């Protein structure tokens, strides 16, 4: 057993965790429906009757769908598994906590990116988008999906076995992140303070690159936005691992 690359084995275990998460937590009709409907509602609430062209709405649809699908379920997995004591079973297996969490992150990532791509596939034929921009669009969706999923896991770090506490915390953090971002009002129309605050939300950068890839208009450069998203990802990932590790012993 030990002759095999232990790292490779950890990744195989990670994939087992991901499959478990997807079949238990994601592929449920309520989750699927919520993942699609909630961003739809938010979107309609803001744009109904505002008479904007489809191409300027698309980045918003994409970022909302991606954000909700990749960061909504992740936060409840750890508190739920703490309560059901399945976490203890996992922790007694030869897999480190980091790889368990990576499995959870991967599940949110795959679910979010999957649904978002399905939505986007329908829209892309209506757009005139070159190959280079299509690649940027895909890259942004992948990186952002991973970033949002890491945020979801970070939010599940407090040592509680009550998923509804975490849901509350999660909404308290995630909804403001939407509202302070440049999603609903383009950055150049925000007051100076608004623009400053908008920089604190990863969604700002996602929507900015999406705008760039779809109609080559943006407030930051794509390179800067991608860098910012990358930094957010690393920070969420790092903090998530640290806090989870610190709180693990309080869960049993």
């Amino acid at each position, binding site marked *: *057993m030990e002759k095999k690359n232990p790292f490779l084995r950890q990744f195989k275990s990670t994939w087992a965790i991901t499959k*478990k998460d997807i079949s238990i937590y994601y592929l449920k009709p309520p989750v699927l429906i919520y993942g699609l409907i909630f961003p739809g509602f938010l979107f309609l609430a803001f744009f109904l009757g505002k008479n904007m062209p489809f191409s300027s709405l698309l980045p918003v649809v994409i970022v909302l769908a991606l954000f909700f699908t990749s960061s909504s379920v992740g936060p409840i997995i750890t508190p739920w598994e703490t309560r059901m*004591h399945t976490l203890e079973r996992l922790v007694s*297996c030869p897999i480190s906590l980091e790889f368990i969490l990576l499995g959870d992150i991967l599940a949110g990532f795959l679910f979010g990116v999957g649904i978002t791509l399905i939505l986007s596939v329908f829209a892309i034929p209506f757009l005139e988008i070159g190959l280079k921009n299509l690649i940027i669009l895909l890259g942004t969706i992948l990186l952002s999906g991973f970033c949002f999923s890491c945020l979801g896991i970070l939010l599940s770090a407090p040592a509680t076995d009550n998923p509804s506490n975490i849901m509350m915390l999660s909404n308290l953090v995630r909804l403001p992140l939407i509202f302070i971002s440049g999603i609903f009002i383009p950055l150049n129309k925000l007051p100076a303070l608004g623009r400053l605050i908008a920089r604190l939300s990863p969604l700002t950068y996602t929507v900015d690159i999406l705008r760039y890839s779809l109609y080559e208009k943006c407030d930051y450069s794509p390179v800067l936005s991608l860098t910012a998203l990358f930094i957010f990802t690393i920070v969420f990932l790092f903090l998530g691992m640290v806090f989870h590790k610190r709180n693990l012993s309080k869960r049993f």
Partner: protein
Amino acid sequence: MDLAIEAKGLTKKYANVTAVNNIDFQVKKGEIFGFLGPNGAGKTTTQRILTGVITATSGKASILGYDIGRETFRAKNRIGVVPELANIYIDLSAWSNLMLIGQLYGVSEEDRIKKSTELLRIFNLYERKDEKTKVFSKGMKQKLLLCMALIHNPQLLFLDEPTSGLDVVSSRLIREMIAKFNQEGVTIFLTTHNIQEADELCDRIAVIDHGLIATIDSPENLKKEFQSMQAIEVAFNPPIKSEDDLKKIEYVNKVQKIGDKFKLYTDNPDELIRQLLNFSQKRNLNILSLNTLGPDLEEVFVKITEEHKGWSYGKEKSFSKTV
């Protein structure tokens, strides 16, 4: 000597309690080692430390020669664990639960399928393998947990109260299986608060309470201690005034008054009941109630610790193995 478990000065402190207090013990390969104690004694905490789920505040444990703190994966790869509570995924089928755990232990797909089929058959669960375990009874869940613990052919199996709260049939099957796997060479660490269970299965038993090990001994030797701790609770009408009459009855070791009842300690409950019937007839008393009580673990613990006052806590008293 070939050791499966060696614990040295294990201690786990929580904010308000010391759950495990500087305990030492050794488990030999091939043994069934009982860890017997009342609720809150520190059994689960000890098992969690030994299985690498939590880290000890101080002390060391080596599992099959691997330090659980530093060589955690090597140790974990070789042990099977049945934790205290039903820790299966109730939203997955029995089969998916087994596949998941098998993957986490790095068992190849072929072996996973073979071993799962074999184990589910042994535990009479094969026909139900594709059902979500949500609908399983407590006994079925526990049996599935055992299958999950065995899927990677561990050399050492940790069981935390595996029959607690189960029906008689499931309990018996699980005990038979524990004995069977032990015969096939698996070392067993069995946590329990059930004296009969420990007696029936174990080669040696550690008695633990308040995080301290009172003694480690063979069931035979411990039984001598337990036997004098059996008791009969009796109430008469009209109530008798003086305990002294009861003390004179043969087979009574000690009398304790509890409300209108008397608790009579004895090592022979059967004979004592006959004596009590005689006693009541002679004096024209009605027996209002009569209960036989097994030895109370707390009391056993107190008694043992009193007897071995000279011994420092947590040190082994004897190391003889009875087979």
